C-alpha cells in the first residue's frame, strides 16, 4: 500500500465528508459520502481506504469513517 495515495485518499474522503455534513442526520450524511465514493472512486482507491479503516482509520472524520465502512 502506497503512502502517497493513502494520504490523498484520507484528505479527499474528509473533504467530501466536510462538504456533505449539513443535513444534521449522520446516517444520511454518511450515505451521501458513501454514494459519492462508490460513484467516483476507482476500485483500488476504495480498497485502499477500506484497508486503512480496518487497520487504523484514525485520521478519517467520523462521517468519512462511517461512509467508508459502508463501501462494498
Amino acid at each position, binding site marked *: 500500500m502506497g503512502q*502517497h*495515495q493513502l494520504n490523498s485518499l484520507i484528505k*479527499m474522503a474528509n*473533504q*467530501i465528508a466536510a462538504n456533505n455534513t449539513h443535513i444534521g442526520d449522520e446516517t444520511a450524511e454518511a450515505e451521501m459520502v458513501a454514494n459519492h465514493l462508490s*460513484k*467516483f472512486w*476507482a*476500485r*483500488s482507491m476504495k480498497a485502499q481506504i477500506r484497508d486503512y479503516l480496518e487497520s487504523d482509520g484514525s485520521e478519517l472524520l467520523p462521517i468519512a469513517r462511517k461512509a467508508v465502512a459502508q463501501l462494498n
Partner: protein
Amino acid sequence: MLQYFDPDKDYGTPASVSENLITLEIDGVSITVPEGTSVLRAAAEADINIPKLCASDNLEAFGSCRICAVEIEGRRGTPASCTTPAEAGMKVTTQNQRLGKLRRNIMELYISDHPLDCLTCPANGNCELQDVAGEVGLREVRYGFSGENHLQAEKDHSNPYFSFDPSKCIVCSRCVRACSEVQGTFALTIDGRGFDSKVSPGQNQAFLDSECVSCGACVQACPTSTLMEKSVIDAGQPEHSIVTTCAYCGVGCQFKAEMKGSEVIRMVPYKGGQANHGHSCVKGRFAFGYATHEDRITQPMIRDSIDQPWQEVSWDEALNFAATRLRGIQDKYGRESIGGITSSRCTNEETYLVQKLIRAAFGNNNTDTCARVCHSPTGYGLKTTLGESAGTQTFDSVMYADTVLVIGANPTDAHPVFGSLLKKRLRQGAKLIVADPRRIDLVKSPHVQTQHHLTLRPGSNVAFINAMAHVIMSEGLEDKAFIAERCETEAFNAWRHFISEERHSPENTEAITGIPAAELRSAARIYANAKNAAIYYGLGVTEHSQGSSMVMGIANLALATGNIGREGVGVNPLRGQNNVQGSCDMGSFPHELPGYQHVADDVVRARFESAWGVKLDNEPGLRIPNMFDAALDGTYKGMYCQGEDIAQSDPNTNHVQAALRSLECLVVQDIFLNETAKFAHVFLPGSSFLEKDGTFTNAERRINRVRKVMPPLAGMQDWEVTQALSKALGYPMDYSHPSEIMDEIAQLTPTFTNVSYKRLDGLGSIQWPCNDAAPDGTPIMHLKSFPIGKGHFAITEYVATEERSTRKYPLLLTTGRILSQYNVGAQTRRTDNQIWHDEDVLELHPQDAEDRGLKDGDWVGVTSRAGETVMRARISDRMQPGVVYTTFHHPDSGANVVTTDNSDWATNCPEYKVTAVQAVKVTEPSDWQQRYREFNQTQLGYLNKARSKETAAGK
C-alpha cells in the same frame, strides 16, 4: 438557428430582427423584408446588387461614400440606400443614367487620390474599390493625379500580422466602425477633418503602441489594401478556401482557411460561423503559424529510458514498441497499472477513440481528460442541479440579457469573441456585475461601466454565492411560480431553510468575502429584479476546493430567480479550450461512458459491450491526480497521453514530474516535444487542427466541423494513430473516416442520436441534445423541464479551503490567462504573439510591492508550501492588496511549481486559484528553474541527436 442567408455575400447592412414584414418594389421586383431593413439590404436579398463602399453587413449603415445612391419614386434627390429604411409600397430604382453618372463622379474623386498600382497591389483580385470602379464603368479621372494627395503617406508595419498603408485609404470608416461596433475596443478613430481626415490608431500612434488588440476586424472590413495581412502581401491572394473551426478557446469560431495549394495564407472569420458570425480574435485570426513551425516533430521516436537520446523509427516500430511495453507492464503489475489522458484540444472523434481504446483495449477505466483540471466541477455541479453537464444557452442569447453576472471569468482575454458580443449588449444598456478578485478589463472599458465590481477574496466563492441567495430569499425576490412549477419541492424547502440562516447574510459573510454587505445586497437585487439575468462563469469558479459547490450555488441562484429556460438568461460556463465540452461529452472521464452514462449502469454498459465486442469494467478508473499518486506508489506504470501537457499545466510541478519519472512507459502523442514528452519513452507525432477531419463542441454545446485543409505533416491524422495503436494492442478498430466514428457516437449516445457529418454539413453546426425529440438540436436548454424532471436545489455549505494566508505565506496567488497566449503556450509561443507576452510575470498591488521593496520589473521569488519560482514583478492596481496573480503560458516561469495539490472535493479539479505564497526580491532563478533549464537542454539535445541522424542519413 437555421440560416437563410448566403454567408459569402455582403448584404450591406445588418439584418432586421423585426417580425413585421413589409413589401416594396425595387427595379420592378416585388420584395418582402422585415421592417427596418435598409433599401440596400432589401435589394441584395433579391440579388439586386447596388454598388457600395462604406457599407458592410456587420456594421451599422454609415452613408458616407454615397456610391449606393438610388432614386425613390416621389422623393427628391438620390438618397443613400444603406441609410434609407425600406418602406411599404416604396418604388426604388437602382440603375439609370443619372445614378450611373453620379457613381462615376464619386469614384473619380476617390481614384484621383489613390495609387494606380493595381497590378502590384496586394489586394489585386480582391479589392472592393477595384470592383466598384469596374461596376460603375469608370473610364477616366478628369482631375489628374498631380494635385494634393495622400500617396506618400507613411506605412505602419508595427503589427506583426498586418500592415497599414494610408496611401490606399478611402476613409470609409469601416475599420473604425468594426473596431467600435464589432470588437468594442474603440482603438481606431478618424483624426482630422476634410482632406486631412485619416485613420488613426489611438492618438496617432503606431498600431502596436495603440489599444489595438489585433482581432483583425479592421483588416477584414477594409475594402482596399490599406489594412492587409502580411501573409497576403508576401504570398499573394489565396486561390481556394475551406471552412473549419478554430482550435483555440471554447467559443468555437469558424474560419475560412484561405489557401494556396496546401499552404494556409490567412484565416478569415466565417460569417456563417454560428458562434462567431464573422468575428475573431488575435489567436484564431493570426496565430496559426505554429502548425508549420520548425519545431514540429514528424517522425515517430522511441527510447528505453528518458536518460537516453531519442531514436527515430517507423510508425510500425514505434506503435509495436508502445504496445509491447504497455502489455508488458500489465502482465507484470496488473490490468489497472496503465491508463491514458486526452486533451480538450483534440477532436470529439479522437477523444472518443482514446477512451474506447483504454476501456476496450487496456481493459480498465483509467481514462481522463484535461477538463479534470478546468471544468470537471461544471460537469458535476450542473448535472446535480439541472440534470445535464452543460451550459444552458447560445452565445447569442446574451443579446436578450438585461443583467449579466460575470463570475471568475475574463471574457475579453480568454473568450474574446464572446467578450465582444457581451460588450455590445452592455453598450446597449444591459447591466453588468463582475465578481472577481482582480479588476479585469470588462470592469471598465469604452462605453462599458460595471454596476458592481465585487472584489471577493480568493477562496470565498461559496460564501459569496450563498450571500447572494440569502438576500434574494430573505427579501422575497425569488420567482415563486417558477420554483413551484419547475423545482423539487422537498429539496427547495431544505435549501430555503439552509440559505435563510442569518449566518449566510452579506453582513455575516463580509469578513470572509471582503465584499461590503451593502454592495452585495445591491448586486443581488439587480440580478434578481432583472427581467432576464444571465450568469457567465469561468475557471475562477471551478478551480477551487469548493468548485463543484460553487457551480451548484450558481445554479441555485438561477433556479431561485427563474432565470432558466429562455433567451437572455441561464448558467453559462465559459470553457477554456476549444473542446472542453466535447472531451467531457465523449466519455473521457473515468466514471462515465460517452453521453455522461455511468460505467456502473449495467444496461448502458451492455450496449457499449455489444457495440465494441468486449467486456467492460463496471468500476470507475483513476482520475489524473489519482494516476500521479498511484504512479508514485508504484502501482501505475504506463500512460498514453494525447495532446495534453500535464507536466506544465497541472499543479505542483515537482509532484507531477516525480510521477512521470516513475513511469516505465509514457507514450506521448503531440505536435511538439512538449514538457510532458521530455519524460516520454515513445513519441507519436500528432497533427494540428489544419491537418485532420473531426468535430469540436464549443461552450454552447455546438458541434462544429473541423476540416482537413492540408495533409498531416507526419502522414497520419491523430485518430488514425490511436486506431493503429489499438490494433498493435490486439484490439483492431476499422474506421476509414472520422464520420464513421461520429456515427458510432450517435448510435451509443442518446443526446447525439441525430448527429452526423451530413447533417452538420447541412445545418452548419448542431447544438446537442440532437435526437428525435430535438431533430435539429437544442439552442436553449430546459425550456419546459429538466433531464432530471425538476430542478434540484443543492445545499452548498461554505467550507474554507485549507490553503489560507499565514505569517509565512501571507499572500494569495491566483493564476489565469491573457489574450495573446493560449494555455501552456505550445501553440502561441511559436507565433508572433510572443511580441505581446514573452514571459509570465507576477502582478501585485503597489502596497504589497512597497512592503517588499519591489519595483516594476524586479525579479521576485514566489514561494509556497509546494515550491518556489522566480519571475518579474509587475506592479498593478488591478490587484487588491494581499492577492497576487500570474499566468502559466511559459514553462520556464514555473507558475505551477508553486500551485498545490489542493483540489475540489467532488472532482479533484485543482485549486489553481488559491495558493498561499510569499514574494521576496531575489537576484537569481530558483533552484527548480536551474534544474529545469539543465533538464530541458539535455532533453532537447536528445531530440537533436535523433534529428541529426536523420539529416546525416539524407532523409
